[in-house]
């Protein structure tokens, strides 16, 4: 009867669509964030993990898939419930001083990742035979113009499409014919090596998988779309699917590099992008370098555009400054200042002669990994505050996984710093 009445008052309903169609309609921010998350820092860290330690680090990726899904769900839910970005919530819940701390951490993490993206641009162009002293300044200007001119939205889809090159790792992994029993075993068996190299790579793995900026990005996307908490019930599957897909690809990168590069002691330590590219040989043979370079370039440019924008929007949101790419410098000086700063610092550091690009990419992810737990603590306090989230606070399971992630990330950092300070393992 009630259904009858509802159709009477609103006679013209659109044709009922299947849930699958609706799912496709809401897909967006999550998949974008996750694909861009597999940026140059991610690719190099995953490649190095596979090449250096074989399948040994796979178990972490399995655990971190849960962490990433839950953290991204939390960020999106906060956006849907409050209609505000993460930075705004930090400011309103904690006040000025903690906000400054959080924003400095975000800026550091974004600037470091931005360095990695320009390292990615440099490495990819060097594979094409272009000197980094040309590629990086041109890249910086192109990225800056894409952001300022607002044409980023047009280019975004192309870059996203090109960076999907990395999905070929999934096929390559099968072409490389690993022993799947061993892989499966490694995926569920924790193993740890007590040397600083292992722990620094573990921190980098955390930092690149659950990168801090991605949480800001997902949340502000949900806010910009005006997703309500009702729609979130559906929209969250986009975020979850994106997170799972990104980690799925990451796991296959590790499997591929572990199968192709790890057996030979000479290729166990990746110091150049060309070495990482070799991992794609089983599938595409001599074209591995070109394919890898295209994917790396696209992913790097994409992330290099997103990162400074995320930093600019978040910081201005927290402090109430005007922001927007369509603003003139006199209207939004700080916003434009921040993204210009992030872009050009990133580019400038790569131009220091003799910088090892792969090392820079991984180091930036170590910084991300160190910042991550502290930003997650902010998130946990907010997402469990009933005055902010109402009935949508975390359940027990979410809290448990999130706090375990935080504890794990802090433990990894502490062990790494301890080992470095004490000089254990050389």
């Amino acid at each position, binding site marked *: 009867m009630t259904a009858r009445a509802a159709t009477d008052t609103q006679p013209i309903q659109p044709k009922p669509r299947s849930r699958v169609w609706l799912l496709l309609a809401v897909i967006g921010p999550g998949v974008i964030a996750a694909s861009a998350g597999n940026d140059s820092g991610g690719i190099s860290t995953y490649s190095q993990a596979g090449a250096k330690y074989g399948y040994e680090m796979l178990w972490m990726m399995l655990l971190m898939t849960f962490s990433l899904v839950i953290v991204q769900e939390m960020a999106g839910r906060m956006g849907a419930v409050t209609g505000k970005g993460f930075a705004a919530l930090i*400011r309103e819940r904690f006040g000025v*001083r903690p906000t400054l701390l959080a924003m400095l951490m975000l800026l550091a993490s974004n600037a470091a990742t931005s360095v990695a993206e320009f390292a990615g641009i440099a490495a990819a162009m060097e594979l094409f035979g272009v000197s980094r002293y040309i590629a990086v300044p041109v890249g910086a200007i192109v990225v800056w113009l894409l952001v300022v001119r607002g044409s980023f939205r047009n280019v975004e889809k192309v870059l996203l499409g090109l960076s999907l090159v990395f999905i070929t790792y999934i096929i390559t992994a099968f072409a490389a014919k690993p022993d799947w029993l061993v892989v499966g075993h490694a995926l569920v068996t924790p193993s740890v090596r007590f040397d600083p190299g292992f722990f620094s790579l573990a921190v980098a793995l955390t930092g690149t998988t659950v990168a801090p900026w991605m949480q800001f990005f997902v949340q502000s996307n949900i806010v910009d779309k005006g997703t*309500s908490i009702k729609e979130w019930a559906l929209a969250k599957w986009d975020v979850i699917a994106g997170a799972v897909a990104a980690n799925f690809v990451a796991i296959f990168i590790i499997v591929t590099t572990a199968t192709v590069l790890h057996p030979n002691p000479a290729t166990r330590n990746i110091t150049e992008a060309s070495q990482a590219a070799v991992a794609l040989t089983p599938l595409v043979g001599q074209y591995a370098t070109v394919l890898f370079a295209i994917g790396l370039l696209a992913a790097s440019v994409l992330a290099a555009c997103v990162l400074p924008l995320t930093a600019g929007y978040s910081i201005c949101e927290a402090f109430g400054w005007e922001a927007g790419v369509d603003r003139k410098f006199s209207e939004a000086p700080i916003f434009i200042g921040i993204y210009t700063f992030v872009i050009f610092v990133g580019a400038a550091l790569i131009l220091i002669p003799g910088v090892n690009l792969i090392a820079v990419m991984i180091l930036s992810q170590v910084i991300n990994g160190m910042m991550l737990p502290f930003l997650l603590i902010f998130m946990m306090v907010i997402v469990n505050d009933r005055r902010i989230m109402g009935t949508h606070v975390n359940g027990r399971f979410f809290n448990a996984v999130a706090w375990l992630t935080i504890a794990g990330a802090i433990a990894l950092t502490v062990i790494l710093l301890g080992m470095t300070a004490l000089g254990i393992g050389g």
Partner: protein
Amino acid sequence: MIYITRMMGKPVVDAAGETIGTINDIAISPGEVFPRVTSLAFLGPGKTPFMLSWRKYVADIDEDRVTLQVPRAELRFSYLQPDEVLLSHDLLNKQIVDTQGMKVVRVNDLKLSESRGQLRLLGAEVGVRGLLRGLSPRLETLTARLAKLFGGSLTENIIAWNYIDLLDRDLSHVKLSVTHKRLHELHPADVADILEQLAPNQRAKVFEHLDNDQAAEAISELDDELQADVLEDLTNERASDILEIMDPDDAADIIGDLPYDKAEILLRLMGVREARQVRKLLGYRENSAGGIMTPEAITVSAQLSVQEVIDRLRSTVEKAENVYSIYVVSDGRVLQGVVPLRDLIVSGPEVRIADIMSTEYFSVGPDDDQEAVAEMMSKYDLLALPVVDESGRVLGMVTVDDALDVMEQEAAEDLALATGYSQGAQGAWLSLRRTGSWALAWAVIAFAIAALVRNGAGGTPSPLTWVFVAAALLPIVLRLTEDIASRATSGLIEAPGESGRTGLARRLVADAALGVGLGVAAGLAVLAVLDVALKDPTVAAVFAVPTALSILLTTLAATVVAYVAERLSDTGRRVSQTALTAGLVLLAAALYLAFAYIGAGMAAGALAKMTIG
């Protein structure tokens, strides 16, 4: 002056001098221009929150503490009243709307002042100074001193209470103050300005406070891209009600931007008459007279008397957007004449319309270009222009406000095109689309040929490669220099003799910087592309350097030429901007080819030497 950030956490001392807790919040009672502080919230032992009446118990407040009038035992605690606003909880760190500056800002601090024994809220500090104070008062004084040292000053940016509207807490039941300017009391154009700065959820909240008339006007004033977004967030019933109120031409614009399904639902919910009008308008091209016209033209028969027409106007004018003229039509709605409103009013009530209508009138067809229509209205000083179909039937009219919108839009596009110096991404895209794509296509083809020739020849670069590369790059140099030249000479478009022309030296310096920047950028781009395409650094360098040099020199030449031309035009002589631009582009081409020729010669010489050595 007392600041809330400094007061938080300061001790609360009773009459006996005993500390009974720390300040947690301060409540005000809105309703005055500068609202009075009414309650003090503090944390007692064990972080238990308490509330006290300010008027009854507080004796004194200074920078270090709040002193109470009575000893602890005599205190009677109270509760937060529904009309009280908590400064720290409800205002500090929150986003507010500055209804005077039309901005959305964040409250960094709140300033209070004591006068005649009463503490009152002055306003919200939204500037950097409040932010620094929130971080550390010492940082604030230090920065203030530094600023003074450099001759500046760290000013406060205070928004008075009566210009604040809250976004977060729904205080609609609280009467904020007599003179309070609430968001929905502003002019719709101002409301639209603020709406553009808000996130979708906040926008929805503001819309809850607007009635349908205000909402319709505010939506009409929004940026085009936002209009559809906003409407999609409203319930279908409300959206259709609002669309009904809007002028049909505005409504059609918005509905045209909506997804098909949504548009169909809204159109069916709308009144039959309004929906039919909108559907008709949707059939016309966007940039045509039909696209900007309103169908609500007043049509009458020639047989009526003036009095009858005025009566009819009185009963129908509510629905019409604007009335400037009455259109006289035959039975088949075919336009026969026009009666300006003025003539109608000054004529006697018994006069026949047929006697006062003028049969000499302007009209346009629905497919005429909107720019032409706007120009026509401007040229003949028309307030409204009837739109008629091929058989002369009245379809609607274009009014002066629509024409103004068109002229503004077209002027922006034309300026971007004329100067090649666009204000936004759209302008750049337009100019690229209209003039630049051929250059790119040319370059790609020539490069492809050059790369093929090079691969075929192998070893040293063949003369053919040189020619192809030179040919490929030439259009790019031409395009760039054309932009530079038209930018430099764009001063000629402005009124001659305009004051404030800058001196030649200053312009040369400014433009030299631009030229170096552009030249280096273009040179680097050429270097990078050639290096990749031909894998030959020598060829790359030979072409990169001439590109950079010719662009730099042309920029400087353009500045000088433009300066001279402006002087000439100031003295009354006509100078053709097109001719100047063409001359400069030719100069650039000559320079580029000359440099490339010299460079190629040098490179060939060096190569020969290397082979001999």
